């Protein structure tokens, strides 16, 4: 039975870049364990289907076949810099201004 220990949820929250206080981690670990328990049945269902048919089941990532789409290389109207920056938390010289991206130990 899969279970998500609190430490693993804390690790996933760090990967997902979400600060999470301890109380929230405990509650979420409990809920996620129940959810993963319920959805994990897909693994067994696929194994049974493959055993019954003797064939591997191909994966489907998308309901319709995907192909890359390109457009002619012509100049079209795009957003102005002012429009693109209008909702920016901070901007400077027609650019997004962001906090420093390297930490102390980088």
């Amino acid at each position, binding site marked *: 039975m899969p279970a998500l220990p609190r430490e693993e949820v804390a690790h996933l929250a760090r990967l997902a870049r979400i*600060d999470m206080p301890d109380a929230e981690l405990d509650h979420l670990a409990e809920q996620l364990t129940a959810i993963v328990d319920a*959805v994990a049945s*897909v693994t067994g269902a*696929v194994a049974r289907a493959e055993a019954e048919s003797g064939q591997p089941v191909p*994966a489907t990532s998308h*309901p319709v076949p*995907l192909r890359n789409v390109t457009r002619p290389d012509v100049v079209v109207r795009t957003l102005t810099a002012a429009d693109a920056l209008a909702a*920016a*938390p901070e901007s400077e010289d027609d650019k997004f201004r962001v906090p420093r991206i390297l930490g102390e130990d980088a």
Partner: protein
Amino acid sequence: MTSHSAAELVRLDASAMAGALRAGEVSSVELTQAHLDRIAEVDGPVESGVHAFLHVDAEGALARARELDAARSRGEELHELAGVPVAVKDVMVTRGMPSTAGSRMLEGWVPPYDATVVEQMRAAGLVTLGKTNMDEFAMGSSTEHSAFGPTRNPWAADRIPGGSGGGSAAALAAFEAPLATGTDTGGSIRQPAAVTGTVGVKPTYGGVSRYGLIALASSLDQGGPCARTVLDTALLHEVMGGHDPRDSTSLTDPVPAVVAAAREGARGDLTGVRVGVVREMGRAGHDEGYQAGVLARFEEALDHLRAAGAEVVEVGCPNVEHALGAYYLILPSEASSNLARYDGMRYGLRVVPADVDPAEVTAEQVMAATRAEGFGPEAKRRIILGTYALSSGYYDAYYGSAQKIRTLVQRDFDAAFEQVDVLVSPTAPTTAFRLGEKLDDPLAMYRGDVATIPANLAGIPGMSLPVGLAPEDGLPVGLQLLAPAREDARLYRVGAALEARLHAQWGGKLLDRVPDWTAASTTGAPA
């Protein structure tokens, strides 16, 4: 100029409003004002009103209505729906009008462009009243996960209006708008339609452009129309549908002739149509969690289909029983990737953590603080679940297996559609549940999507339409129709035939019986 009272006007079907506009019996300004007045009457306050709208653009709507009235008086050729108001789900971006997707993350964001569907509706002369409430980033089945407070069900103020598109469905049922838009990733158009006694269609995947629809799970998301009748839904579908070069997954087919199909169906004759009842969606032995009154109304609807000349048989789609599990692995995986864009850098919320020197703070600290504050509990649950499902060591077992289930569900539908023209099931296993009832039990909330999810996995079109009130609680029940990919017209033909027979039986529409909002809001328990 008007020969209708404002109270009568807002209760007309969209097609009747369009007819009154063409006949000069009413102006678009009068029609728009009647809806704005209705919104003012029932939508607020947030604590006790219907709260279908997050933003109402009275000034913009009236200005657009004046333009359309002027164009009509000049004799310009206008679209059939020109001058009719529409409510737009807040997941669709609107240039110059706030678009939040129900999230604090985007509170106050005013997009610099329009979604393709918004452009299409503007070109057709539909008048945008405002933006409708929804679960945050379309994650939820109750609209309780909106960061701005829940929407209430016009049938009973203590009940959920469904979700994620509860705002659009409630706006229709409360006569605040005759047409509305939705997006359906696992049932977010169909389930709200079912629990509010309205009609909603999830088109074939790729049938309506996703450009400008704030993404949840890109392989499942599909925009579509919501209305009070099958014909009105078809009229909006034809406005929203069609190829869009800006969406790489957009179908190149012409828009299906759904209006003609609805008109044909309304004659009530389904001779030669084969209808398959999906065994695994509520039939004996597969009815755990299905409410008795829902099953009773569904059974009566099957009798109507038979009486209309359809051949009704039971068909098996055994893998739909695994669809819920597959969906709640695929959706969080795609969502965790799509929602990575909310990082506090380019638009939306930015939170600088209080305990760090602002001069020293790093982008990563800002991201983590922004996402902690900007996302609600359901968004966080799904992002973390998706991050888990995609992490090394679990990828094959979870995400990989879920994708294989997707294949098996598609094969089941392919085989079923060899035998029948359309499939039917109850849209949702129960009527509207009470606000707060499932808020902290995500798994119970997810189980309500059991009948709607398979269509999204397979990319096939689906409709929900009202088939009556459940005797035990007097709340609306929806029937779901499914058709093969690109055969959206079948939904409208069969849906309109069933609707015509039910209207004849009821002596009107189900929504004729929706209680007056003031009465409903006082009988409901406080939410």
